[in-house]
């Protein structure tokens, strides 16, 4: 009986410790976010630092974003045509492809890909800089590593995410057009005109952009935080990279639900 109580107490203590650690870490992440925002001046005054990160996070993600966008558009076109032609509405496939991409798939899949391609790279780079004492060296040279290393990477991610999501959606629409109009033979004029009539800029496009901006901010923050906070060992960096991808994916999907429920309530 005593053993049972002792086991329960140990379990409770463990849960308590995990909760306290989690809250502490959340608090630290919040303070870190403010520190990054406060130290962001240099990212604007020395714009070449941010442009360099835009290149690494944005330009180097172009291939995976365009190719994935194209394939998602191809699949959407096929599935959309298959379903809509049963109801005699095959001409509406363009609307379906465009709305699916602009409202949901564009921002969400682009953010998931961005987290795995650029987010993991940012975490690895900052984590390795920490492990090899480069951040400490910078701090000892009276250069704030949050301003010099973290903030430009954060802003590089924040700025490139909406652009990547837009490109993803554009490629998706192109993929949808390619498969339905060029291959299957849906009417070209109907495809574009229905899309033009049904897609509203203020409602569909803008909300999609807002979503991708939120995802970009969250993924970039997670990536720089995990790198900066990692244990300075090879194992610690590897765990931080995994956490970046997993936490970002969960955050993107959960936030997407929250944002969708506010934006598209019909």
């Amino acid at each position, binding site marked *: 009986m005593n053993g049972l109580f002792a086991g329960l107490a140990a379990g409770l203590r463990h849960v308590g410790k995990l909760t306290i650690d989690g809250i502490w870490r959340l608090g630290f992440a919040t303070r870190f976010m403010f520190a990054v925002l406060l130290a962001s001046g240099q990212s604007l005054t020395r714009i070449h630092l941010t442009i360099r990160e835009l290149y690494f996070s944005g330009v180097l993600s172009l291939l995976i974003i365009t190719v994935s966008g194209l394939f998602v558009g191809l699949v959407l076109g096929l599935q959309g045509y298959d379903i809509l032609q049963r109801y005699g509405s095959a001409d509406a496939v363009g609307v379906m492809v465009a709305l699916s991409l602009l409202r949901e798939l564009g921002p969400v899949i682009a953010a998931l890909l961005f987290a795995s391609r650029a987010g993991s790279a940012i975490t690895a780079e900052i984590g*390795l*800089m920490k492990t*090899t*004492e*480069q951040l*400490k*060296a*910078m*701090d*000892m*040279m*009276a*250069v*704030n590593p949050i301003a*010099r290393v973290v903030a430009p990477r954060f802003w590089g991610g924040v700025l490139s995410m909406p652009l990547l999501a837009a490109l993803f959606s554009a490629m998706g629409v192109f993929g949808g057009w390619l498969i339905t109009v060029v291959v299957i033979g849906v009417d070209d004029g109907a495809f574009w005109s229905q899309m033009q009539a049904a897609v509203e800029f203020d409602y569909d496009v803008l909300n999609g952009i807002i979503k991708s901006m939120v995802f970009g901010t969250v993924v970039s923050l997670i990536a720089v935080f995990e790198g900066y906070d990692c244990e300075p060992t090879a194992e610690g960096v590897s765990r931080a990279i995994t956490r970046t991808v997993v936490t970002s994916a969960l955050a993107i999907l959960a936030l997407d639900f929250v944002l969708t429920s506010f934006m598209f309530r019909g």
Partner: protein
Amino acid sequence: MPLVSLRDVRFAYGERSVLRGIDLDVHRGQVVAIMGGSGCGKTTLLRLIGGQLKANSGAVEVAGHEVGKLGRAELYAMRRRMGMLFQFGALFTDMSVFDNVAFPLREHTDLPPTMIRDLVLMKLQAVGLRGAASLRPGELSGGMARRVALARAVALDPMLILYDEPFAGLDPISLGIIGQLIRRLNDALGASSVMVTHDVHESLEIVDYIYFVSDGRIVAQGTPDEIRASADPFVHQFVNAEADGPVPFHYPAQPIDSLLGGRSA
């Protein structure tokens, strides 16, 4: 008045006490070595001087300023007059050797690019690596990386240079080169140097004064000649690399007799 002065400095990582009342002085122009076994608190001392850590009690003063009481801006102002060589160089791996040495100059001065170029090449010339300016840190040997890091540490002509294990993992030639550079650069710049190291013989050749740290306290100190002549058991064990002595070979444990012959712990 010493450039660096520590008075009754105590420091603990959480519950684990690391420094238990350290008194230490570094005078201008001196190269001072802090020696002791691994984990004795040497690097912690260096971090206290550089302001990376704050002492739990006691005073750490650099150039008359109490380091622990400085705000971030004042600490950074002080660090601009300090150079630090990290154990493995800590070179920025995304920059060339040239850009590494130019980094502090570009961050803290408004000098034109041509002047920065000249200064960087002079610093690299001083460490014998002007020809390696275009290489990346990954292309350098351990000794070369340490020399580049040294050029970077002295880029702003600091008043105080801190060295964390500058000889660790170097071959005898590189070790001798780094030792000579530490002395030469210190004298040429009119700076003071604090060096944390295990390497007794190299240090005795180049330093002006040595402090031995054990168990969080200064257990011996003196000039190289005094250290060589010292009868102190700790110094004797350290200088002669003896396995047992005041620093025991065995980690504290119960007497082995009580564990042998089937008797349980």
